[in-house]
């Protein structure tokens, strides 16, 4: 899916729980998500904290969309 949208000329960021699968399907801009049942949420957190977490991920996704890249890039916090 991500490839077809990009092929149409629209920049797309993939917010994905399993980054390697995202790499395999050919996403170019990848933002790691939280976990499988709730990629952009964390039920353990309070409502405000959870929404802030979601906002952080979405903002990272927007940054990814504004970043010039030449190859598949994972926009994650850890430096490794």
């Amino acid at each position, binding site marked *: 899916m991500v490839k077809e949208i990009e092929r149409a000329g629209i920049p797309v960021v993939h917010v994905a729980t399993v980054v*390697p699968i995202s790499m395999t399907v050919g996403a170019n801009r990848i933002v790691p998500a939280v976990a499988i049942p709730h990629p952009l949420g964390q039920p353990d957190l309070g409502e405000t904290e959870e929404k802030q977490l979601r906002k952080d991920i979405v903002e990272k996704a927007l940054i990814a969309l504004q970043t010039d890249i030449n190859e598949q890039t994972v926009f994650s916090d850890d430096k490794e």
Partner: protein
Amino acid sequence: MKDLVIITNNPKIKEKFEELKIDFVDNLSDVYSKSRDLVHQDWKLMSHPLAGSVKPAQNPYRSIILAPTKKLDFYSLNTIENAIQKLNQFKKDHKKREYSQKIKEDYQVIDLTLINSALKN
């Protein structure tokens, strides 16, 4: 070494490597699916899941060595997925049959020596 786990359905592995962590499963498919599950939980393959030249599905016994790692190992994921694909392909063309006890043991020995050779290094 102590962190390793061997996923296996080979009884000879269980006998031979008492000091190692062995996860004994019922059948060949489980060896692969269990290994894949572990890869998704940040374990990486130490031995190749298609070790040896006896074709997938032909040898009813298989052992795979994994070790814990810090994050998802993409190479392991790719390798185990490809191996499962190959296993399924060979299974399709390979009628299941009952081997004699002697042949079963020969297959167990083959698998055992592959793992032996991996653990030596």
